[in-house]
């Protein structure tokens, strides 16, 4: 604390805490309070419902798969953008951010228009027996779309700061390209990949706007938890059941993020030892 770069430690900490409290903590505690006040029978009715279980499975399962795809795709994209020089590289680089800025409903409608059986891409896929829009594949596609920039943007600065000397040293010591990637680059990138994975996962789990347009929203098939929550609210009356689902999502998300951060710590320790 002796070398403060920024003046006014008390003030800035105060603002930080007030901000976090008002914007993050307060709504979340209101949710927890509401969910805590509904009684065991409501909890049981919600969590025991097959439809809810199915939606939870789709939301978290879909998000895990989407985040994994994002990590693979994102690594490739970031690598190409950092290491290669090609025309329109800047444009491509800017395009990566689009899913950040685009209203998700717009993205959802655009994806649906493209992948619907009468859309440009959907029309080509239909003879192959592949339907994307209004299936679980569509849910996955939307989740991949919104999560991708998180992986690319976390990886890019790390890739840029990697020292070429390390790779060159590995090459001179006789490492093949694959060994170089597997033994030298990947361990260095691992913590960042995990961070990117966690961010993409968190984004995909909570995604609503784009998914509901492309998913078809069929109960027991393509219904995600956020949509169930909205339906329970829209039906009017008590918000207790919706709060229960919200609390379940919150707890599950915290658990997932905790797991990822534990993995990260374990990875760091392993790196230090190795």
């Amino acid at each position, binding site marked *: 604390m002796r070398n403060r770069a920024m003046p006014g430690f008390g003030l800035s900490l105060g603002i930080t805490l007030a901000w976090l409290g008002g914007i993050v903590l307060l709504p979340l505690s209101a949710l927890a309070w509401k969910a805590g006040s509904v009684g065991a029978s409501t909890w049981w*009715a919600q969590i025991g419902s097959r439809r809810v279980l199915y939606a939870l499975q789709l939301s978290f399962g879909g998000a895990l798969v989407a985040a994994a795809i994002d990590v693979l795709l994102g690594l490739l994209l970031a690598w190409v953008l950092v290491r290669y020089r090609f025309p329109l590289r800047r444009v491509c680089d800017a395009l990566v951010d689009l899913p950040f800025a685009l209203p998700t409903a717009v993205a959802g409608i655009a994806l649906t228009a493209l992948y619907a059986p009468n859309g440009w891409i959907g029309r080509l896929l239909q003879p192959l027996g592949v339907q994307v829009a209004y299936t679980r594949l569509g849910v996955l596609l939307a989740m991949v779309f919104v999560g991708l920039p998180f992986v690319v943007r976390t990886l890019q600065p790390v890739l840029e700061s990697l020292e070429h000397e390390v790779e060159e040293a590995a090459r001179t010591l006789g490492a093949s390209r694959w060994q170089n990637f597997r033994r030298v680059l990947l361990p260095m990138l691992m913590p960042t990949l995990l961070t990117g994975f966690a961010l993409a996962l968190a984004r995909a789990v909570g995604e609503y706007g784009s998914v509901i347009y492309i998913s078809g929203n*069929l109960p027991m098939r393509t219904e995600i938890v956020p949509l169930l929550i909205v339906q*329970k609210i829209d039906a009017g009356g008590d918000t207790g059941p919706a709060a229960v689902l919200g609390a379940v999502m919150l707890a599950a998300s915290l658990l997932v993020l905790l797991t990822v951060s534990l993995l990260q710590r374990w990875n760091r320790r392993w790196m230090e030892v190795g």
Partner: protein
Amino acid sequence: MRRFPLIVFLALGAVFYGVAAQAQDHRLLNVSFDPTRELYKEANTAFAASWKQQTGKDVRVTTSNGGSGKQSRAVQDGLEADVVTLALAWDIDVLADRGLLAKDWQSRLPDHSTPYTSTVVFLVRKGNPKQIHDWPDLVREGVQVITPNPKSSGGARWNFLAAWGWALRQPGGNTDKARAYVTQLYLHVPVLDAGARGATNTFVQRGIGDVLIAWESEALQSQQELGKDKFDIVVPSLSILAEPPVAVVDKVADKHGTRQLAEAYLKFLYTPEGQDLVARHFYRPRLPAVTEKYAAQFAPVKTFTLAEAFGDWRQAQATYFADGGVYDQISEAGH
């Protein structure tokens, strides 16, 4: 010196806020549901003109559109609507439960506060390739039905009840048979949109499904916008009379001092001018004279009312659409 811009911004903000609050005196906010967008856009202008003529005062009515349940929730959570014009009475009952208006709100205006009606019909592709003529055709093998989610769409709740009521009123019909029919019906739905407009888009733009269960007003409007050569309207043997209600939100109107204005606004919908507007936007008017004038527009339909088949909206909501209700049960069945 550096702080100056911030102070200026705050001051400007305060001024704008003050101006906005001032201007609200002769403003009316109508919180409505989705498919009334075009109707109220025109009705607001027409009412302002008639109000100016009667009182010499200017009035500006703005309408907010969205899913009926969502809009009702917004008003419950503090959106200051002077009047609400929603898809079904339950969404206003909820407001009455919160003390925002009197419990007997539905008896304050004629026709239990529903100045216009519609009914549930089928929109099919031109030439009716799947030969869909009545409710049983919807559950034939290979027929795909588009209708929105009754949990989030008020219009879709009327669709649900129309199907249920039809099945109930068949020879030998009972609750079990109605339930079996409606369960089958929803198994024929490949895409369950959140709202009526979404469902129309899925059917019209994405080309999904063989039949769209829609309000007559929506069906007629789609037909007008897209051309009669693309879609046909099929009228089932029996349907429900959809009665979307309107009400002044007492608490808000009293707070804004707009009660008189708000009441005049809703009563305007019952006048010959208002009824004519209603009919031009494909809702069925209440006034016999106007009904006669637009007779060619509306095909004769045999309808039952919600009161005849289900009691009132409070009961219908609790039985069919509440959490864990019949709709939730049937959407888990068959999987």
